[in-house]
């Protein structure tokens, strides 16, 4: 087992380093994020929504934009309500792919991050391949996966987990690497073993970054699931996009896009709340 307390001169200037860290690890933009405070703010939000939706409805009608270019909001809403029972099974397929792929990819990514950050040498050897996985669009592998696994859910679940895993891994690894020497020393001084240090110090310490990784990973997973469905197979919301656009049924096409947007927003909100609960101490 590696020594948690590297034999370094005990200095504790970790604070400035953490402050300097910005970007994905900075939760402040999320945790201080939108929150309706007064009825005035609520009214303004509703008003802007009405102006944008009503305005586009009006403009599309005035200029008589053909439906196959851009349907009006009311037509999209009608299609959403009317055809939802046809779209719903496909939504279930996409969500199933997303959830299974996410579960597999996120657990693998988390475990890999937890293990390799304990061994700096292993991390050095593995990191280029992880970067390769992060930067390669997993969609490109879908035709290959379909050749091997057929047109069912399997190739798409594999693609989703391949998209989620590296994203979770790279963020969680950043979190694990950030562990504060003084906090580990504290636990050690009370006699903590490696596993206790991991559970009580390293994981909570890395939690903000882990949640960021899960959020980014799940959004990437959604993109990959939909993309994979557009490439091959006969089910899923991606498949519906291809299907409705080939029939020029644009209201239904946009209804599917609206559903995808709502799924994406739900994912964001879910992780926003998780972050607020588990990582709000950082901001």
């Amino acid at each position, binding site marked *: 087992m590696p020594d948690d307390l590297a034999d*370094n001169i005990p200095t504790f200037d970790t604070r400035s380093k953490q402050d300097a860290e910005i970007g994905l690890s900075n939760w402040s933009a999320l945790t201080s994020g939108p929150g309706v405070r007064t009825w005035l703010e609520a009214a303004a939000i509703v008003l802007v929504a009405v102006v944008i939706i009503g305005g586009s409805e009006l403009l599309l009608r005035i200029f008589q934009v053909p439906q196959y270019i851009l349907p009006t909001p009311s037509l999209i809403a009608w299609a959403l309500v009317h055809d939802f029972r046809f779209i719903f099974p496909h939504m279930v397929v996409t969500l199933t792919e997303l959830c299974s792929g996410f579960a597999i990819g996120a657990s693998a990514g988390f475990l890999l991050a937890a293990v390799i950050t304990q061994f700096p040498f292993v991390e050095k050897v593995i990191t280029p391949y992880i970067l390769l996985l992060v930067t390669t669009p997993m969609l490109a592998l879908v035709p290959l996966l379909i050749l091997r696994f057929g047109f069912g859910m399997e190739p798409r679940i594999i693609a989703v987990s391949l998209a989620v895993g590296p994203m979770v891994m790279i963020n969680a690894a950043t979190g694990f690497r950030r562990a504060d020497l003084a906090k580990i020393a504290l636990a050690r001084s009370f006699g903590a073993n490696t596993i206790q240090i991991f559970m*009580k110090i390293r994981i*909570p310490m890395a939690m903000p970054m882990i949640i960021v990784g899960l959020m980014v990973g799940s959004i990437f997973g959604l993109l990959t699931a939909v993309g994979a469905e557009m490439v091959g197979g006969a089910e899923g919301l991606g498949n519906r996009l291809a299907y409705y656009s080939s029939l020029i049924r644009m209201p239904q096409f946009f209804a599917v896009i609206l559903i995808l947007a709502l799924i994406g927003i739900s994912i964001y909100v879910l992780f926003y709340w998780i972050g607020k609960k588990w*990582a709000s101490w950082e901001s």
Partner: protein
Amino acid sequence: MGSSLAMQAARQAVKLRVEDATKHYHTRTGVVHALEGVSFDVREGELVCVLGPSGCGKSTLLWAMSGLHQLTRGRILLDGEAITRPHPAIAMIFQDANLLPWRNLLRNINLPFEIKGIPPAARRDRVNALLKRVGLAGFETKYPRELSGGMQQRASIVRSLAVDPEVLLMDEPFGALDAFTRDEMNLLIQEIWMESGKTVVFITHNIAEAIFLADRIVVLSPRPGRLARIFEIDLPRPRTLELTTQPHFIETLVAIKASIDHGGARAASD
């Protein structure tokens, strides 16, 4: 002064022995000699301050005494037994309180119990009494960021005392606090030490703080940290803040200051 003959006798027993403590760090730029052949004893129930400028290996010495770091040469003995890893009878208080920001105050204090597998319920009375003692009763559910620096450090003192250690090692615990809070904390430490009779090793670079707290002051010279001198401080207890303006206090301060200023030069000429 409540020191009976029995206490005096108990104080003769050596609790901690530092023997030829030497530590070399191997860094990229070469070998750093942090400590060189430091030896001294800490008697049972004694409050010893280790004093020296930054970079004299004070923290290194304390980390070795806590068993967190190994020495390059020499050894640390607790009741005659060599310390090679963290010992349950030794608790450490760190710089900047070192509370876990994701835990509230009570859960921070319960951390040692969780690690040692002791149900916190068994120690609840003790923890409550300690919280009350340091003036933190009612703050149990607050998070560290909601507490002042002084309160955070009080919480970390409670965390260390809750496990009832025999030896308390304090690594510049009040370095980050303002002067007023620092005075307050030093009074608190003196009270707690007098009540509990624990053996305390207190690291500081503040001479007045060391004189105020210590039975003896171990002065280290910088780079490499060598033992420069040991001062006996025979000021009566409990010591008050007024004492720090008395002529005798000032004289001691000047003497120690002079020994540090000359100590470096002497160590270099050795």
